[in-house]
């Protein structure tokens, strides 16, 4: 029983971590109407930046201090980079068909991934966990890794923060209105282009923050972009685009399915997320929380 609880916590924490990244994807899609296939690459940038700050720049500094700095630095730097990308490459294709937009972000994913390779090479790196987050939290008979609990905490915080931003602040209202009707916002005098840039940067901020947070747990190296991207896509496909809450539920479900799947059907561990996705799609092709879409 205790094993199951610990697996559940692990699954939920992975879910929250995934949620953070996926929420960025949802935000970018909702406001820019662009599917950011480079999202995984930005996640990777976040991981690498975290590694770079903790292990290289502030290597003399204890992880307890350097890690929080790294988190913020990674997310902010990546977001700024994202802003540059948005202005230079994504703006020209705002009005283009999804086909071109998707191929463009696909190419972007290649470019960014190779940029990382150029900057940091092909090795796999580890990031030291800060001591106050390392080790287990002992609750009765349960040994819960502190970092997992930390991730759940951060994930919850992000979710609530996003909820508040989108529902209670003026910025959030503007963003939501742009989601519903870009043309109308334009007509009302809002600069939709800058709103989009901001939304993109917010999405990238979340993706890279997710990457930075994942760095101490997973290794940092080539290929992590693909893994996270596919998982994000599964989260979004299962949830149906549109709601952040939906993404949260979907991500946590995926995390749990994965955790328990590994226990019960270890031989097909890598295929579990996909099986999950396929089952959901058979039952509800437009995702659990999506709206039925006509297919012509």
């Amino acid at each position, binding site marked *: 029983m205790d094993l199951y609880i610990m697996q559940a916590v692990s699954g939920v924490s992975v879910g929250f971590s995934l949620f953070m990244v996926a929420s960025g994807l949802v935000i970018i*899609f909702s406001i820019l109407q662009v*599917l950011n*296939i480079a999202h995984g690459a930005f996640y990777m940038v976040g991981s690498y930046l975290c590694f770079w700050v903790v292990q290289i720049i502030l290597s003399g500094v204890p992880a307890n201090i350097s890690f929080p700095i790294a988190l913020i630095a990674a997310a902010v730097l990546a977001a700024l980079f994202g802003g540059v990308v948005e202005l230079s*490459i994504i703006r*020209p*294709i705002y009005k*283009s068909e*999804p*086909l*071109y*937009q*998707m*191929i*463009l972000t*696909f*190419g*972007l*994913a*290649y*470019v*960014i*991934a*190779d*940029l990382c*390779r*150029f900057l940091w090479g092909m090795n796999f790196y580890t990031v030291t966990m800060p001591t106050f987050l390392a080790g287990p939290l002992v609750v009765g008979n349960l040994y819960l890794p502190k970092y997992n609990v930390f991730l759940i905490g951060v994930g919850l915080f992000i979710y609530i923060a996003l909820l508040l931003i989108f529902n209670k602040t003026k910025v959030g209202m503007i963003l939501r209105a742009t989601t519903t009707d870009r043309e109308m916002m334009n007509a009302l005098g809002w600069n939709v282009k800058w709103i989009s840039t901001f939304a993109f940067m917010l999405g990238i901020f979340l993706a890279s923050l997710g990457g930075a947070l994942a760095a101490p747990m997973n290794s940092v190296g080539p290929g992590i972009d*693909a893994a996270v991207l*596919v998982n994000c*896509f*599964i989260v*979004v*496909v299962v949830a149906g*685009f549109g709601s952040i809450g939906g993404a949260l539920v979907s991500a946590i479900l995926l995390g749990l399915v994965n955790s328990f799947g590994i226990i019960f059907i270890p*031989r*097909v*561990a*890598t*295929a579990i997320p*996909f099986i999950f*996705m*396929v089952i959901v*799609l*058979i039952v509800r*092709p*437009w995702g659990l929380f999506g709206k039925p*879409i006509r*297919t*012509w």
Partner: protein
Amino acid sequence: MEYLNKIGRSRVFGWGAIVVVLVVMCLLPFVLSGGWLSSVTEMLILALAGLAVNLIVGYGGMVTFGHAGLYAVGSYAFALLELSLGVPFAIAMILAPFITAIAGAVVGWFCVRLTSHYFALLTMAFGMIIWAIINSWYSVTNGDNGLFGIPIPEMLKSIPSYYYFTLIVVTVSAIIMKVILSSPYGVILRAIRENSTRVNFLGVNVRNYKWLTFTLSAFFIGIAGALFAGFTNSVFPQFAYWTKSGEFLVVVLLGGMFSFIGPMVGSVLFVFLDKVITAYTVYWPFVLGMILILCTILFRAGIVGFISEKVLRQGDRQ
């Protein structure tokens, strides 16, 4: 929009040119060394894969990021038929595309129920499902070790002979595809690309049409996969990885997705660039990505479109 005036009827390459090209291709083994001839064989196989993908992207107007998965199905089906079931080369080569078509029909059934972004997402996810299956199912596929030593008949073992074999198969496949695309089905497919709602309101069940297209495309990419497996005598899970789908997209976009020969031109360029650029730098994916980005912003109709516009602009005026 103007240049599209020309592409629709780009007769830059008439029948004469096709015959010339084929004759040249037949004579290549006498002129080129083994290494170059190998590269040309790769180009041919990639061209077929590109044509298959373009059926969906250029003619059907649907982005797919998962065709590498179907390509891998073709390769592995061929390999497993021969290695595990002892099926003779010729039969395996014939069966592989049909098996791929079935896989395509299954994947397609899910995907065509959605459009645009969702469709693309799903194709990518399915491509990776296939990768995951191939990668984990050690007992059957040998997982990430891949399969080796796929037997090919004695007479095809030399590079020139496999080259001719590939040339024949690809040419026949291309002809069949051209016939299909010139049929009423092809006209309607392009109309679906342009405005699927309207076609739906002309009495066509668009979803089924897309499904059929997906299956056809899978069939042809299965041929490409099988050819490649025979060519290299080995198959690996990487064949199914999403980055391979990216290569197909580059071939289609770089060459030109609005013309039939576009992917063929694209594959020649791609293999050429691959060889040249990897000689100078490891950052080949960077180059690929930049090509994709540039094509979507500046060269939407690819090289063929670009040339068609320049060449035909000097000719008639509309």
